[in-house]
């Protein structure tokens, strides 16, 4: 049975246990129909030309984990940011771990989507936002049909969450092949502020296929900073679908750090629904072996006087492959738009490759849109220069690569996170030098 068929038949079984009166039920029914019609995307789909899901849809996945999922904090401590106080929403094989989490309802809601979907006091917010921001494409629909759990963050008007929130999804590898479909909803009302760090982490080398959906709503003057750490093990694959609705004068940034995993696809869509929006999309990809990372971004400028800034850096070694497909749409009424897009890549090995494709669809006439893409190699002259000063080849390369990617880190607002990412980069490049540039 194909994965698609298995999912369709499992859906019926899942739904037997749910409350048919809940309005979510109709949303799920509708979603499974979308998935049934479209299935998994293939390379014939223009948006998936350079990323094949064939290897991901072959294994026979467990859709729930049956084993005892208790894990000790000391064993997973290193996957958290520990040197600052944070809220934590932690899942193990898709199931909430109250033991590892630290949630709150004090002025803001930092809790579970399952609670929000079922408890009456959250109904009003769920009715307005849940599945309203996400577009009805196949993979998001698949997630909508199955998703039961994830993070729910609600920040009311003029509130700021007093510390960053870490969302961590662990998979234990208790199942040989596990499919996970977490779902996050983040609502920042007018003038609210929140910072989120998300990580998917498998704890052994069994295969995990995660199809994650995150919806983010930023009200007027709201500020949302979202950081994704993608540094998973070699058999973990992730499709991350993040949909963002921005209202007037809001600022939303998404930083994506992709250093690990087998196949990673980031579908990141920004919809600017108010004037004076600022959207920031940044990423650093450093991969090797046969790893594959695909950034598929969309910034839809639907209102005038807005900005968007995209800056993605990629470093590809061995036979790794990268894709950057950045689409910017400017509607006819969206005048005075400044849209910047830049994608710079370094190929370390002659077997590595990158497909970089900017796509601009501009229907307004008074806009400034720029895009630039470079693909190059490390500067050998710079390397020799460094060597004559006593800096070895490995360290010199690392320094050059870090310097190349460094400006993406400048906009990271949490210093401890910046330090952590810097360490991850040093680890990834196999050097022990300080990068405090």
């Amino acid at each position, binding site marked *: 049975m194909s994965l698609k068929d298995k999912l369709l038949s499992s859906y019926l079984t899942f739904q037997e246990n749910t409350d048919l009166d809940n309005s979510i039920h109709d949303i799920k029914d509708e979603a499974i129909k979308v998935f049934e019609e479209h299935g998994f995307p293939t390379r014939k789909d223009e948006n998936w030309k350079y990323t094949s899901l064939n290897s991901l849809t072959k294994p026979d996945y467990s859709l729930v984990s049956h084993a005892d999922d208790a894990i000790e904090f000391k064993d997973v401590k290193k996957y958290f940011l520990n040197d600052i106080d944070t809220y934590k929403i932690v899942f193990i094989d898709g199931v909430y771990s109250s033991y590892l989490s630290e949630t709150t309802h004090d002025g803001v809601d930092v809790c579970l989507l399952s609670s929000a979907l079922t408890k009456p006091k959250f109904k009003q917010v769920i009715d307005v936002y849940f599945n309203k921001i996400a577009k009805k494409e196949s993979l998001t629909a698949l997630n909508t049909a199955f998703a039961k759990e994830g993070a729910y963050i609600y920040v009311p008007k003029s509130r700021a969450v007093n510390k960053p929130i870490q969302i961590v999804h662990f998979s234990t590898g208790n199942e040989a092949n596990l499919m996970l479909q977490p779902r996050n909803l983040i609502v920042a009302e007018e003038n609210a502020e929140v910072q989120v760090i998300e990580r998917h982490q498998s704890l052994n080398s069994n295969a995990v296929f995660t199809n994650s959906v995150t919806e983010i709503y930023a009200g007027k003057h709201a500020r949302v900073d979202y950081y994704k750490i993608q540094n998973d093990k070699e058999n973990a694959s992730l499709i991350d679908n993040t949909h963002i609705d921005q209202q007037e004068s809001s600022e939303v940034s998404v930083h994506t750090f992709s250093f690990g995993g087998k196949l990673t696809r980031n579908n990141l869509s920004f919809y600017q629904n108010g004037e004076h929006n600022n959207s920031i999309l940044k990423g650093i990809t450093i991969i090797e072996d046969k790893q594959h990372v695909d950034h598929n971004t969309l910034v839809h400028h639907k209102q005038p006087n807005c900005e968007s800034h995209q800056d993605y850096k990629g470093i590809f070694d061995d036979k790794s492959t990268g894709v950057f497909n950045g689409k910017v749409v400017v509607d006819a009424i969206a005048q005075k738009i400044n849209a910047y897009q830049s994608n710079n890549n370094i190929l370390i090995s002659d077997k590595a490759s990158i497909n970089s494709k900017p796509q601009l669809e501009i229907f307004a006439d008074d806009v400034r849109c720029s895009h630039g893409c470079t693909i190059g190699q490390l*500067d050998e*002259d*710079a390397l*020799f*220069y*460094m*060597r*004559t*000063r*006593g*800096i*070895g*080849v490995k*360290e010199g390369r690392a*320094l*050059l690569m*870090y*310097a*190349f990617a*460094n*400006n993406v880190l400048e906009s990271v607002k949490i210093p401890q996170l910046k330090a952590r990412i810097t360490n991850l980069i040093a680890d990834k490049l196999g050097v022990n*030098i*300080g*990068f*405090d*540039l």
Partner: protein
Amino acid sequence: MLEIKNLNAGIEDKDILKGIDLKVNAGEVHAIMGPNGSGKSTLSSVVAGKEEYEVTGGDILFENESILELDAEERAHKGVFLSFQYPVEIPGVSVTNFIKTAINETRKAKGLEDMPASDMLKMIREKSELLEIDRKFLSRSLNEGFSGGEKKRNEIFQMAMLEPKLAILDETDSGLDIDALRIVSNGVNKLRSKDNAVIVITHYQRLLEYIVPDFVHVLVDGKIVKSGGKELALELEEKGYDWVKAELTA
């Protein structure tokens, strides 16, 4: 300190150095002069360990040991320093962090701990004052957008920080105005001691008015064709390189 014996080297089947002999002792300053294309920069690159050049004969001894098989960074760790004619721009790496990394990597190679941050800062302050370098300059990306004079001053600053035994200054005077030339030469002179040696590679005599050499060698077509004291530089300036060439063919 440095002994070059019958050195032959080239690039892609093209012979450039055709039997160089040179001996430099601690405490000495040697100038190597010569017309364009005579092999001056090749000589400095080969001593520093640039891999593109193939050594086809002879040897280079540093402190009585051959360094031909050593990588560029290993030569640097031993105390060989090359100041580039065209220093490379490295965007995103600040002058301070670069020199910090260079010093600590050199210390690591010698089995030493990193230099304590306070010592490093103190040293940076001292050496940057010596070369009249503004503090702001140190936080800029290495050589990026630097003027010719700033680049060369930065090279000598690094030399001052790394304290090499042998410094090779490749066309350090090119691109310098008279003030920068004075500052750079002044820096080099202050760093001279009985324990280290300097090789100044230059096309013109001008620099040698500031950094006065003990010996002057004339390089023509890959060979040292004439050696002498500092007065040889003046003679060259007056009569031009054609004079040496004419003498050769005579």
